[in-house]
């Protein structure tokens, strides 16, 4: 077997051996000016729903999620997930609110549900101790890189 074929085979074996990705949503919160930028990193949920409860004192500002897949009501934001791997939104409010976001998700293909951030791998810095952030777009780029990295690793 040629080295090239060996490498291809190894890649194939790794890809084939990769377990089915467990459904999970991570929340990354960073401070930005007078508000907070929230990025939800969606893993293994091709079709589902998310309801985020905004902390007291926070006011909804905007999102990059399509308008027809977003609904706001009484301090809660609902997102319909149809293939998206990241959802970003911004709220106006105190930095201390960063660790107080709560949310739930549902996977409509498997029927599973869970809590946003419950099985996340992000460190406490990202949600509990907000730091001066490089800005909404940079955070978005970092999140996209994280998603791309995870895809390449087959996880």
């Amino acid at each position, binding site marked *: 077997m040629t080295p090239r074929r060996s490498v291809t085979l190894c890649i194939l074996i790794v890809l084939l051996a990769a377990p089915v990705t467990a459904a999970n949503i991570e929340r990354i919160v960073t401070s930005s000016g007078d508000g907070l930028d929230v990025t939800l990193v969606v893993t293994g949920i091709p079709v589902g*729903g998310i*309801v985020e409860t905004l902390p007291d004192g926070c006011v909804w500002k905007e999102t990059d999620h399509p308008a027809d897949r977003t*609904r706001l009501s009484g301090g809660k934001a609902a997102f319909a997930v*149809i293939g998206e791997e990241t959802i970003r939104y911004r709220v106006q409010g105190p930095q201390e609110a960063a660790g107080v976001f709560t949310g739930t998700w549902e996977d*409509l*293909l498997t*029927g599973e549900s869970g809590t946003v951030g419950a099985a996340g791998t992000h460190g406490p810095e990202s949600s509990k101790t907000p730091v001066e952030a490089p800005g909404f777009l940079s955070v978005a780029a970092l999140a996209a890189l994280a998603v791309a990295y995870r895809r390449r690793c087959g996880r």
Partner: protein
Amino acid sequence: MTRRLILLACSLCLLAGMAMAIPCDRDSDGTLTSSELATAILDSLDARQMGGAVEAPSPGDLRDAAFIYEHWDGRALTITDTSGQTTTLTRPIRRIALFNSDSLEMLRSIGLEPDRIVGVSKYALEDPIFYPEYQGKANLGSVWSPDYEQAAGIRPDAVFLYASISQSSCDEIEDTLSAIDPDIRFFRFDSFRPTVYADEVRTLGLLLGKREGAGRFLAFYGDATGSVAGVVDTIPVKDRIPVYLENWNDYKSAGKGSGYDEKIELAGGMNIFGDNPAEYPVVDPEAVISRNPDVIVKIVGAGETTFGGYGDDDISPFERVHRAISDRPVWNQMKAIRDGRVHIIHTDVIGGPEYFIGTAYFAKWFYPDRFPDLDPRAVHRQYLEEFQRLDYDPGKHGTFVYPA
């Protein structure tokens, strides 16, 4: 009275129309768009978690809609099964009853969740080593002796039957269960015939939302069959090894176009009774001698030779069968006996969905020099571990071939 009948007819039409409609397809144009699905998801979240007063779809409708959008591109699915029967579905299949154990194994290969199967044949229940996760499911009996009470009682969405085995029995099952519940869908697959095997995997993957799993399995299957076919294709027809195949009944061979005839051919052999028009002819021992095969293959695991396979580690019955063939009167004149080329194989790895493992053994036996690196046991091990998800090493357990 007439007015009542008209009303009843209208109601029935309406109900039938509703049953055929794709859930959450608000404009009823037959296509569930991403926008319609998003609205349904948001309405559901709004009503259940945000105190909204919107009219939301039921959780069942929403899940069905998500499935149809993700796996069927938001449209009804029309598929044709191996028997040629065409069915259109506007709902996913969530409760499957299988009379066909071979399809049960194929469904496991594509990664179907066991909880979508609500009833299985008695053969699956009699095999706890190979089907551990299905023990405790409803026992449907068999194609030849179905338990209709059980089958109807588990309220299946779909019943899977064989396409080419016992068609009259399968027709009877379909007629009887249709009369009990007209909403049951029937599908016929074989899951053991090489000519339709890959197509069946693809169709099942699409039907059950397991296209990715089907693709993974087909890649493995393609490698396993391709490694044999690639070599066999280079062997001129005139140089093909003459093979005598006998099933578990002595002198019962395989005729033209039978499954075993096809499997011999796939492995590059020339079936010495491939010209016999009967599917499974009982042949004259002297005809075998006169055709003087290079290789003899005996299949065990059924009928008079019900031993071996996954649940049996004792190889001694295989040895006895092997010896008995060599000891048949005058058979020592045959090339296969003189050269020690008699092989015993269990039906588990040649008669059903694992046939490609058996044909790998065949190829190795027919042309040992052309397949020095072919390792049928490794293919078997990978199949069990990766696609059947069984903690079972065929190198340590079971009896499948002799000599090993």
